[in-house]
């Protein structure tokens, strides 16, 4: 169990890790305790950025994110024979979570099990409907990159440019970026320029790497014409 916790908490010091061990044991005794242990993590284990240049945990998990992901990994292990129950609890933790707790659930989707199914995709969709940079960034981790439809994923990346999430936070950007996304980004940049406003420097990460033309439309528009 301790190896599992260590794997997900590279930035926790020894004191914080021993406090987290208490929660892990409590959870192992009674997995249903997750509903009250998960919200309590920041005050019981640790709180703060793991990277001083990333205070809100946009690009890197904060300390409380690491500890919460470790707790969810413990829960997934305890319920490995009951994946539906785990998915249900993730949805509840997200629904009743404050923004910090929601962010940790989204991070856990990407961190815990690369073979997870699409059951938690509605949580990612919800996060992408917000304008909260912490949630939008976490929604575009590897889980979102794997399961979001091309259209939803592109809209998510465009929202990053719009609300100021650095594209470094978007998982698998180079693999998934396509001509349609590049055309959307180019249109957005033209709109900004026409309004006399600055263009996000991150836009070049897409525009310089992907060939595109003004006629590149999303799939649903193509099928309509």
């Amino acid at each position, binding site marked *: 169990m301790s190896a599992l916790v260590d794997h997900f908490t590279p930035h926790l010091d020894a004191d914080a890790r021993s406090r987290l061990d208490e929660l892990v044991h409590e959870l192992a005794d009674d997995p249903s305790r997750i*509903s*009250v*242990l*998960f*919200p*309590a993590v*920041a*005050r019981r284990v640790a709180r703060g950025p793991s990277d001083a240049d990333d205070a809100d945990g946009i690009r890197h998990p904060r300390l409380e994110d690491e500890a919460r992901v470790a707790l969810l990994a413990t829960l997934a292990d305890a319920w490995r024979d009951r994946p539906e129950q785990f998915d249900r609890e993730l949805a*509840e933790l997200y629904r*009743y979570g*404050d*923004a910090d707790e929601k962010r940790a659930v989204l991070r856990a989707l990407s961190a815990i099990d690369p073979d997870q199914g699409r059951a938690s995709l509605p949580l990612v969709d919800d996060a992408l409907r*917000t*304008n*909260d*940079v912490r*949630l939008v960034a976490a929604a575009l981790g590897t889980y979102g990159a794997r399961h979001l439809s091309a259209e939803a994923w592109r809209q998510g990346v465009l929202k990053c440019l*719009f*609300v*100021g999430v650095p594209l470094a936070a978007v998982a698998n950007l180079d693999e998934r970026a396509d001509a349609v996304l590049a055309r959307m980004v180019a249109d957005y940049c033209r709109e900004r320029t026409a309004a006399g406003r*600055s263009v*996000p420097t991150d836009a070049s990460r897409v525009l310089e790497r992907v060939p595109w033309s003004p006629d590149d439309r999303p799939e649903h528009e193509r099928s309509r014409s």
Partner: protein
Amino acid sequence: MRIFDPHIHMTSRTTDDYEAMYAAGVRALVEPAFWLGQPRTSIGSFCDYFDGLLGWERFRAAQFGIRHHCTIALNPKEANDPRCVEVLDILPRYLAKDGVVAVGEVGFDSMTAEEEKAFTQQLDLAGEHDLPVLVHTPHRDKAAGTRRTLELVRSSGLSPERVLVDHLNELTVEAVAESGCWMGFSIYPDTKMDEHRMVAILSEYGLDRMIVNSAADWGRSDPLKTAKTARAMLDSGFTDDDVDRVLWRNPVAFYEQSGRLLLDDIDAEPAATFEGNSVLRGQRPTGQE
């Protein structure tokens, strides 16, 4: 002068109020979950309200340099509606959160069996979650409601210093003083208690376990009644230290029992956003729409 308002419903107040409160010395407050005037008819309304107390309202207060905490509970009035009672099953998730510093407001409204059941259950929840309790005493039949409240607190096994019995007056203060519970007084423009009667009670009963709040909400009320009570105390001969004790150290001591008060200085960041939405309408942080 620093002021901790231990009972105020900021969800119903304006940004002008926040500014005036900050100017008067308010640096921290507790917003108890209560009735909204319009009765709720489903659990979802409670959850969205609790989310607001822990999310948007907390963020909004911070924009004005004020630390916001809340208490969470099924209030006595809505404990009588079977459509609302199921929220008791959801409360444990909320009682675990960082911004929650007590279970409340619980207690009596019309002294029904349903109210007593919800009250007792929530006293148990306070024990389980190691949180203090904020008790509302009824507007009607207040003395009887206060007596029954104290009986239930005694039989709950909670220690009296973990319980704040609120909305007291000259007729109910003595029983609560004897019980060992904290005594709360809501200072209103024209009902409940005014600042001059409050000063008389402080002169008679002393400052120990005494807590003063504005209880300002959507009704006719005044978020500056805490500061006005402080002024009335000074005018009648109490010292600056006495004022600091009643309006800061006492409420801090009570809610500090939760272990969750955050009272470090706030550097208000007017450009900050909560879930992408700022209180500065139309003036988004630099570089964003």
